[in-house]
């Protein structure tokens, strides 16, 4: 018979989301908390992000990734929160039991009163975007290249083309340049970059690395190692336009073509996923469709800034503690959020007004870049909140806070959409 240890809260993932959730759950009064981390150290992907720019919102400082993580790791350790490294969760069930393995403890099944999912996301692979050509060495996801360069001190190439203008790709374009590689171009299939504006300026413009919007890779050459890459402009249907090809002699291709929340475990527990975000459908407490299983950070929606991951995780940790202590009101939601005109998705998906303490923070992304619009929340015809936005882009997450008073007594749909700004004479 296997031992069945019980915990108040089990947190899957020891990256920024898991760390913040654990600390907040402890502050919320939970005593027996366990953080499960599959890697050899805490901190998650932050540990390979040695550039700065983390923590501007949370700490009003520009920290590197490891520095940002370190603050939470220290706090967690000082609170005496238990964690396990090199530990993989094999299965999660809707009764909040998890099967885990590690070299040290072998195979175990654990029971929790509440579970917080904080597994983060993974990078999209080459096949998912289906680039024709050979399959030589020298093709890396930007994150894998970052691990080699920053964690192992090993270079992945000398002459580099980057496909996709996601933040990791931009950061790696600069990083490779600083390490003496020549970054020849960044090609982005969309007419705009999915990365943060500050990264385009600080990682490309400052180093004279050209960004080709509406371009994609049409061929990869090289039998053993990458020898050449051809990019071409694409038309409105994203098909390459003949005659616009640019060829590069290079030995490396970095792919930064998007991130996908990693929800294999969520699926195994029967948690409902949002096909747009790729993450669980969550309510105002960051609770998934399975009672007592919460989720936060990039496993829910891919964030631009770790600061927002921390905020979301604090919320999940706080409410997980409330759940474990029987303080959350169960029951069906009062409100369902809807992504209306110009909005790609809204998180959270449902709201039980009775569980809100002060306000609800709606997070969303727009479908395409635009200027001078009102970001509007409506209940039927009634205006709940309106925020004027000068500049909106899918690469930057938007958020609207709505005080609980404005939602009291409401039921049905909350519609979030973009509206034209009325011309003021």
């Amino acid at each position, binding site marked *: 018979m*296997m031992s069945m240890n019980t915990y108040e809260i089990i947190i899957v993932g020891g990256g920024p989301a898991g760390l913040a959730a654990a600390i907040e759950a402890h502050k919320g009064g939970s005593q027996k908390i366990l953080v499960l981390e*599959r890697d050899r150290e805490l901190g998650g992907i932050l540990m390979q992000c040695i550039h700065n720019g983390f923590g501007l919102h949370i700490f009003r400082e520009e920290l590197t990734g490891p520095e940002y993580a370190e603050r939470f790791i220290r706090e967690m350790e000082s609170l005496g929160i238990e964690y396990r490294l*090199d530990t*993989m969760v*094999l299965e999660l069930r809707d009764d909040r039991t998890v*099967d885990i*393995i*590690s*070299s*040290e*403890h*072998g*195979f175990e*099944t654990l029971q929790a009163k509440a579970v917080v999912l904080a597994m983060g996301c*993974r*990078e999209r*692979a*080459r*096949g*998912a975007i*289906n680039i*024709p*050509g*050979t*399959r*030589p*060495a*020298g093709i*890396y*996801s930007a*994150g*894998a290249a970052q*691990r*080699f*360069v920053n*964690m*192992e*001190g*090993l*270079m*992945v*190439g*000398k002459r580099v083309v980057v496909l996709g203008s996601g933040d990791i790709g931009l950061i790696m374009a600069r990083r490779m340049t600083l*390490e*003496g590689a020549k970054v020849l171009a960044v090609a982005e299939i969309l007419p705009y970059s999915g990365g943060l504006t500050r990264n385009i300026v600080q990682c490309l413009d400052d180093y004279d690395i050209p960004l080709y919007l509406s371009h994609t890779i*049409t*061929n*990869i*050459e090289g*039998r*053993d*190692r990458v020898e050449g890459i051809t990019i071409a402009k694409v038309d409105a249907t994203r098909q*390459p336009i003949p005659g616009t090809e640019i060829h590069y002699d290079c*030995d490396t291709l970095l792919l930064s073509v998007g991130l996908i929340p*990693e929800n*294999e475990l969520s699926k195994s527990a029967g948690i409902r996923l949002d096909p747009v975000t790729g993450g669980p459908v969550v309510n105002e407490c960051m609770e998934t469709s399975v009672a007592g299983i919460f989720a936060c950070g990039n496993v829910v929606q891919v964030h631009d800034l770790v600061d927002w991951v921390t905020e979301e995780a604090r919320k999940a940790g706080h409410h997980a503690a409330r759940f474990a202590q029987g303080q959350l009101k169960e029951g069906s939601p009062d409100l369902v959020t809807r992504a209306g005109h110009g909005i790609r998705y809204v998180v959270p998906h449902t709201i039980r007004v009775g569980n809100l303490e002060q306000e609800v923070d709606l997070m969303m992304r727009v479908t395409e870049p635009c200027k001078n619009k009102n970001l509007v929340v409506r209940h039927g015809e009634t205006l709940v909140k309106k925020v004027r936005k000068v500049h909106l882009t899918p690469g930057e997450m938007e958020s609207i806070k709505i005080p609980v008073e404005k939602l009291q007594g409401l039921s049905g749909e909350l519609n979030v959409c973009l509206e034209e700004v009325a011309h003021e004479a």
Partner: protein
Amino acid sequence: MIDITIIGGGVIGCLIGRELSRFQVKTLLVEKDSDVANGTTKANSAIVHAGFDCKPGTLKGKFNVEGNAMYDRICGELSVPFKRNGSLVVAFSEEELPELHSLEKKGKQNGVPGLELLSGDEVRRKEPRLSKTIVEALYAPTGGIVAPWDLAIAAAENAMDNGMELRLDTEVVNIERIEGGYRLLTAKGDAIETRVAINCAGLYSDHIHNMVAEPCFKIIPRRGEYFVLDKSEGNHVSHTIFQCPTPNGKGILISPSVHGNLIVGPNAEQVENPDHVETTAAGLNAVREAATKSSPDVAYAAVITSFAGLRSTPDTGDFIIGEAKGAPGFFDVAGIESPGLTSAPAIAVHVARLVRSFFGNLTFKTDFNPVRRPVVHFSQLPNEAKAARIKKDPRFGRIVCRCERITEGEIVDAIHRNAGATTVDGIKRRLRPGMGRCQGGFCGPRVVEILARELHIPMTEVRKDRPASVLLTGVTKMGAGG
């Protein structure tokens, strides 16, 4: 002097090696790449054909049916996943029916068991996702799916367990005749003296042949491109779905893979040389278009990778198997295109028989063990067995590949077995890390690290595949303290 040297470590060379390891002879297998199963064997449809489309009386017809029948036993002995999922050849119009019926007739002549013609509705009852336009289909219950590289690797390992020697990174660049045999000169500058040489060089088998004998055949590489879809789509069909064959080949198929993915392909296009293993936008589009005819709703959004493989098509129309004219003791096993994988076990037995009679007779080893030490697939073990395995070897408690749930213990075992992995792709082929959703994004760096540690080489010397496939180009700037 070595008794027998096999040139080429594809599925043919490896299975012949295993057959010959039954005898008391010194057998060597030389492979130009850094792993066995690295050419056509690693990139094909992975189908064990029933054998209804070969012309009766040909070597293809004979060995296909014989080879097919051997698969259950050989895959059982070698712990290679194999499934008889059955195949369907579908016809979309009345015009195609004569072709379909002739397949049935040929199949019966070739001795294919259990063939059955099904109406369009019967087909869709078996396979609801198939097109409404299908009017009739030929069902062959003996059709199957296998992982060809698994079979080749397992055969090489088992052959080595039974005494065969394997030399990787050993390319034969010339062959000289010597008293009582041949001297094989390698790219490294070594010479291998052997009494018998067996040419299993696949796409290069005409070159090898011409080093010894008068040119009498030519290999024309024909490329086929494929999509591989995520396991979420692995149940799209349960049988292997063929269309009626054309002069160009068996046409586009849709099939589950033995590892649970869905595979769609191949097209057929003649290419100039065996280095053309690139996929093309046009080729992949053609595959997709043609496959849509069989099943209109394949979810291409779930494609995890695409690849291309080359068929070693001979200009003679049939397999070329036997002693080369004027070169006693030099055997060609060439032009092994489809159904080569299916035929391979039967071809191996046949070639071993030829070699045996060349030597007059060969004595069987009394201690030949046909059974390969089973490979532990940690993720498939029951929970109690998982616990026990980690207790025995803690490295099984460390998951390296998250997508396919591969442990460090399995990776280390794959490196240290006979015919073990020496490259990242070698690990990938044996265990599938990097074949899952992330395609190696997470586990790639860890696999490089484990290979370096186990092979006692620096990480910068770990290769993706062939010797020139350098992964890491150097170290980062060290700074003042470095």
